[in-house]
């Protein structure tokens, strides 16, 4: 079991775009970022979201981290560059935390009943804090982009 890649949740994006009209709103500050260990095995084709396998276990725990993760801050969804959809947010951080072996971050729609996954970002290795700050500096080009044109 392991995290080997970052990605978006295909099933959810299908439900956003088809008759299901899944109401994922990337502009919401109720969306959250949760940290998981490398004991999960993501499947971007079938995974649905927080609280459903594999995201119903192996979330990090510890001082300064609340189950479910932290709310996103200042989310934006824009066209940047031309023809490209960009989702971005300000850095996420857990201060005065003792977190062990965080391997990835799940961004999900906490306001929806299904806590539907938006994207998963793989850190590439396990990282731990000790009474310190765990910071995710999202890429300058955005959390994710979809080049459409």
């Amino acid at each position, binding site marked *: 079991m392991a995290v080997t890649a970052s*990605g978006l949740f295909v099933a959810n994006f299908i439900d956003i775009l088809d008759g299901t009209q899944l109401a994922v709103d990337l502009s919401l500050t109720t969306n959250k970022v949760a940290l998981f260990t490398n004991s999960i095995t993501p499947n971007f084709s079938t995974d649905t979201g927080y609280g459903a396998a594999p995201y119903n276990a192996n979330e990090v725990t510890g001082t300064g981290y609340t189950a479910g993760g932290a709310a996103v801050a200042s989310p934006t969804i824009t066209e940047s560059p031309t023809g490209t959809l960009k989702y971005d947010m300000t850095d996420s951080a857990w201060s005065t935390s003792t*977190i062990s072996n965080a391997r990835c971050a799940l961004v999900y729609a906490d306001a929806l009943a299904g806590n539907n996954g938006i994207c998963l*970002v793989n*850190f*590439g290795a396990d990282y731990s804090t000790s009474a*310190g700050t*765990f*910071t995710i500096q999202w890429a300058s080009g955005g959390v994710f*982009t979809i080049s459409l044109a």
Partner: protein
Amino acid sequence: MREGRDEHGERFKATTDELNNTITQRAGDRQDVTIRAPKVALTATTHELKD
């Protein structure tokens, strides 16, 4: 790797790994982590047929 004293005058040692993520060890066994998250980039591909 960088080391020295921070703005509070406390010693620190910051190590950036090959993934460009940084672990900073500070006085009192404090350890911070800064993840430089990769961008998740997807491209939709369209093909135009040429007559």
